[in-house]
């Protein structure tokens, strides 16, 4: 089992979700985070003072998958989030040792999804 963590542009969330559903990946967790980016983002202006914050608003996705779904998940995220510009985001893949479905207390691969 793997835990896929992706940091993407906020406005791409809809498309990424769409792509994941198409690949039959349903178990996702979304949160709002600040991320350091190389890209400049949109300059914000406050009372005439220009602000190009280096911490930008991002969306963080966590997706737990069985091994055979890792590649489809990565493909789906890339397909939904890629624009080719700096700031499209990153995908990290971690080993997942255990997974528990709280309702039934089932464990392991069967508990995912």
């Amino acid at each position: 089992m793997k835990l896929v963590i992706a940091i993407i542009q906020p406005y791409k969330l809809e498309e990424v979700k769409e792509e994941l559903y198409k690949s039959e990946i349903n178990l996702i967790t979304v949160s709002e985070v600040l991320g350091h980016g190389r890209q400049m983002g949109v300059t914000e202006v406050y009372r005439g003072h220009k602000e190009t914050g280096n911490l930008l608003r991002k969306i963080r996705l966590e997706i737990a998958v069985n091994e055979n779904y890792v590649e489809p998940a990565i493909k789906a995220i890339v397909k939904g989030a890629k624009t080719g510009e700096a700031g499209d985001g990153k995908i990290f893949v971690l080993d997942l040792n255990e997974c528990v479905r709280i309702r039934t207390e089932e464990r392991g691969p069967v508990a995912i999804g």
Partner: protein
Amino acid sequence: MINGADTVFILFSTSLVMLMTPGLAFFYGGMVRRKNILSVLMQCFIALCLLSLHWMFFGYSLSFAPGNVFWGGFKWAGLSGVGLEPYAAYSATIPHQAFMIFQMMFAVITPALIIGAFAERMRFSAFLAFILLWATFVYDPICHWVWGEGGWLKSLGVLDFAGGIVVHTSAGIAALVTTIFMGKRKNLEHTPSPHNLPFVVLGTALLWFGWFGFNAGSALAANGLAVNAFVATNAAAAAAGLSWALLEWIRNGKPTVFGMVTGSIAGLATVTPASGFVSVMSAIIIGVSASVLCFIAVSITKPKFKYDDSLDAFGVHGVGGILGTLLTGLFASKAINSAGANGLFYGNYKQFFIQLFAVIVVVIYTFVVTFIIYKLVDVFFRMRVSEKDESMGLDLTQHHERAYTVLE
């Protein structure tokens, strides 16, 4: 004879007092947890809708029609006979309907004040039944006793300029009753902190703004008395806000914005019965004593007796209202309002005992009748939400909606 300036003043004051109920909604709404804010806003708003209609159908008649000494009867039910001509016994220079709607806003905000006691755990249907019964059997009679033509406390000479007894004492005591019988909220070991303090400050600002209509408007004319009430109101609120901040600074090391706004509201509630009878210097003393006493009630008495007055409706309004009514008996002066009376400090000790008597009567009456209404509603509607609903929050379980979105 209708006077244009007086009519303008009352219409504008009515608008201001109307705004106090939403002001209260934000004052209370900011204090509850995020999952319950809409339930508080909803209760305040529906009170505005429901009690407006209650007032026109029979509330105004029960309170102000010239009935017997205990209540006004149904002579003016459905506003029959309440027209655009002045009614001299209440106000000779404005249309009767203007007086009616000004008083309506008082009848709306009084039950709304009680919300602070049972916030975060009352079922919505029970709430509706409760405030409707409470307005009819507690507010309307007390209003008639103190302000209505022929009311027995009025005949006794009780002074209550803008509602220290009628509004704040009655609502505060009702708050105490409901909070005792409803019991504590779940998981109270960590007292929940206000989810949105700027809303509390916004609510306070709107309440302070609206209170000018509440107190100065109670002069029912644009005259010197209105100006006195206006100035006294502002003075007491300022003095109370400042002294609460000082109390905290001394006792807890830092003054808080939450404390300061609570103090201001306590000052406003306390000066309400006095504003048309006392001088500005007296108002400052009233403001300072309001903060001291309410501070004790909220931060010492409440934890000691362990009742869960969630948002301190009793600690601020009940205590403030009672204190203000008694202080009126001390500081009232005929030099300010010749239609009033002198208080203890101006050589008329009798006035103080009249005020004390009125407070005792109203406290007992409110306590008993609120208790009966509470039990009745509990039997028919069940007052409290289920445990699961309480931890999920009233917004979702009572109204199927949510105040804020997470991402978008």
